């Protein structure tokens, strides 16, 4: 068996005149958990469907555990578990009957089938709802059932397309725990999601795709440190407008306002000047700003993503004149918090 679970080289896919994937190349080692990130229409699902043998590539090679998906689709399918972003249900079929049907379809014979069904139902916590009609499940239960179906054949490579979409926070945490357990079992997991902070916690590496091209592939920690700018969170005791005005008045123009919150804002400095944090704070105090908190932040994954799409530059907010900022425009984020929050700048990838 190859050490590479997924190997993609110069993959292209076009549908009539539309090119969905342009020359994509990457590889994933066995046992890795890789997050696949991209805006809607970036080519995520097409790439994943090709990996799962559901689409044929227009050109290029795709291998799963050393097997070409075009030449050996049947063998690849035995190794791959595919969980689509939405899955259809059957009328008049219970949870148990659904899983039993797929276990049979995967060729599992009794007593192995019963044993596998029990394992999967226990793992995905479906035992209590085994006799419930699958059409009457909540989204979270449905996703657990879908994951259960994916795991029936015990695949070594899991391809999960937006598995947490539509889940409430509790179900999302439960789902994340399941993924973590699967990763501990040594499965290779290739997962796409819009919730980047979740991928941040789950994944060993992240793969960014934009307009059908890979724009970044690397470890999450490296991504956060590989920035052209340093972000500082500043909190004032006085009105935040004073801080905004101060930033506007800086002659060098290197200091920019990235984000506002109730009692201050987030500033960006070019990475080359990141060491000037001390002099900067001294200048603020000297100019009469009542600074209560000042610290350098770890870059958020969302910002890294947006910055990547913008070609390495985080977009600062325009600085309004004093009194110009309406109360509704001030974001309610907790200063210094690392919890997920909406990205400060709407992602507008270059056309």
């Amino acid at each position: 068996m190859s050490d590479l679970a997924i190997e993609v080289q110069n993959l292209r896919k076009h549908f009539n005149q539309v090119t969905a994937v342009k020359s994509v190349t990457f590889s994933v080692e066995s046992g890795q958990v890789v997050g696949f990130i991209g805006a809607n229409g970036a080519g995520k699902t097409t790439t994943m469907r090709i990996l799962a043998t559901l689409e044929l590539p227009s050109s290029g090679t795709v291998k799963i555990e050393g097997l070409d998906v075009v030449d050996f689709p049947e063998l690849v399918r035995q190794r791959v578990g595919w969980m689509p972003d939405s899955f259809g249900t059957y009328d008049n079929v219970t949870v148990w009957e659904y899983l039993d049907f797929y276990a049979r379809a995967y060729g599992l014979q009794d007593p192995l089938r019963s044993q596998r069904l029990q394992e999967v139902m226990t793992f995905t916590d479906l035992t209590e709802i085994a006799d419930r009609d699958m059409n009457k499940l909540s989204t979270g239960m449905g996703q657990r059932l879908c994951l259960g179906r994916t795991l029936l054949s015990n695949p070594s490579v899991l391809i999960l397309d937006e598995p947490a979409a539509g889940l409430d926070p509790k179900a999302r945490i439960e789902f994340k725990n399941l993924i973590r357990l699967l990763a501990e079992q040594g499965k290779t997991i290739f997962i796409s999601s819009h919730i980047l902070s979740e991928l941040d916690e789950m994944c060993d590496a992240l793969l960014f795709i934009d307009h059908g091209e890979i724009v970044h592939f690397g470890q999450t920690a490296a991504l956060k440190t590989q920035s052209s700018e340093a972000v500082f969170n500043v909190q004032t005791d006085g009105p935040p407008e004073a801080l905004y005005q101060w930033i506007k008045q800086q002659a060098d123009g290197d200091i920019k306002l990235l984000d506002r919150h109730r009692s201050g804002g987030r500033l960006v400095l070019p990475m080359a000047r990141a060491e000037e944090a001390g002099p900067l704070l001294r200048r603020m105090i000297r100019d009469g700003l009542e600074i209560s908190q000042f610290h350098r932040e770890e870059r958020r994954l969302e910002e890294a993503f947006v910055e990547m799409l913008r070609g390495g530059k985080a977009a600062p907010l325009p600085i309004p004149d004093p009194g110009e900022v309406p109360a509704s425009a001030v974001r309610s984020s907790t200063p210094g918090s690392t919890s997920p929050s909406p990205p400060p700048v709407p992602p507008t990838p270059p056309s």
Partner: protein
Amino acid sequence: MTASVFAPTSEWLSPMIIKELRQGLHSKLFITFYLLLQGLLAFSILLMPNAQSAGNSLFWFTVVTTLVIALPARGLVAVHMELRARTMELLYLTRLSTLRIILGKWGALFLQSILCAVAILPYLFVRYLLGGQEIVHEGVWLAAVLLLSALCMALTVSFSALSNWWGRVSLSIIAFSVLALAYSGVMDALSYDQWLPGLIFLLTSGVLLIAICLIFGASLIASSSENHTLRLRLLALLYCLGLPLVGLATGFLSEAAITSLAVLILVSLSSLLVQQVPLGSHLRPFSKFSLLGRWASLLLSPGWASGLCYTLVLFAALTVGILFLHPYLPKLEMFDALFYLIVLLGTMLFPLALILLFQPVDAPRLLPFVWAQISMIFCYFFILLVEQALETGTGVVGPIDILALLPTATLLLLVSDNLAPLEYTRFCYVNLTVTALAVVYLLWRARPGLSEITQLLQRLRAAS
């Protein structure tokens, strides 16, 4: 738990059949339907003492409607539901091939049909006891109806793979009409003493047609990596060449000819209107044989280029068959039969040549093909009206001769018996020329596709 319900036999049954039966048994539709059938059959028996003819008619009307129309009609949504719910692609990833999926859908429906037929059997005994009906003949008839039911189900389940509702329904109506035309004579024969040849013909033809329909249905939903072309084309070849011989032996030659032509048109068109995507997985079986494998791949691998070669070989084989059978069939006009074959080949290939001539596409598509055919049919009616208005005499070159350039129009003229004997030869030569030109042009366009197949095959052989 629910498992115990199917435990004794479940390992032997297809997963698809188990799933379909579970769904079917949970739904109230079948039970309502079953009770209604029982009620109508009981009512027909009650009618028998006083109005035997009415009771008879009601009984067989109920049986035929249930088995040949109502139950097969349920098949029209069988595959479509899976496609709409996006469950089909999850099934692709299991070990179930698309053929097993289709077979399972059909099998579950056919089991319901058998269940109904078993429920009808006691009524045959009652009819024998009360009305003195021939129980053997009626039993044979019921068996024949059950076979037709299986065939109709195979058709509807296959067509249910089409996304367009109108397409599914209209194709089913056309197919049912062809079956009615082909099998009405056979069903009549079953009512008399000579039922054995009829039953043999029905069994041979029915079983082969069911297999062709199911493979065709599987090919409609198969992912690109699956290959059903080989089986479908070989089975169609067997049917078109073998069934006329069965028809000759059993005395149902015209019935055999009708169904053979229907298979020929269906399989040829499905071969000609498909994209050429040569894949290693498709050609690997051919790479094991040297020259034979190469020739077979040019006929039996997926794609319209090989489909063209296959269609030409099929027509050539039929021509040889007609030449061979001609001395044994005094009623067969050899010239007529060959003319029909040429016109039929032209009807399929001429529009394709036009599409490829005027549209820069890699492969002919269904929609332009249908439009081309409709245009030619309009042309046929228009010129016929002009001809009537001008009242040109036979033998004189008139507007109707334009139709000789359009094989579809010529076919309509032949079918409607509107072609005067003097125009016959002229039309034949013009059609032969048009068809030959279309064949030459299509072969020229198919050349890159065919060489792609050959090159990939060579690479596979070198690699192995």
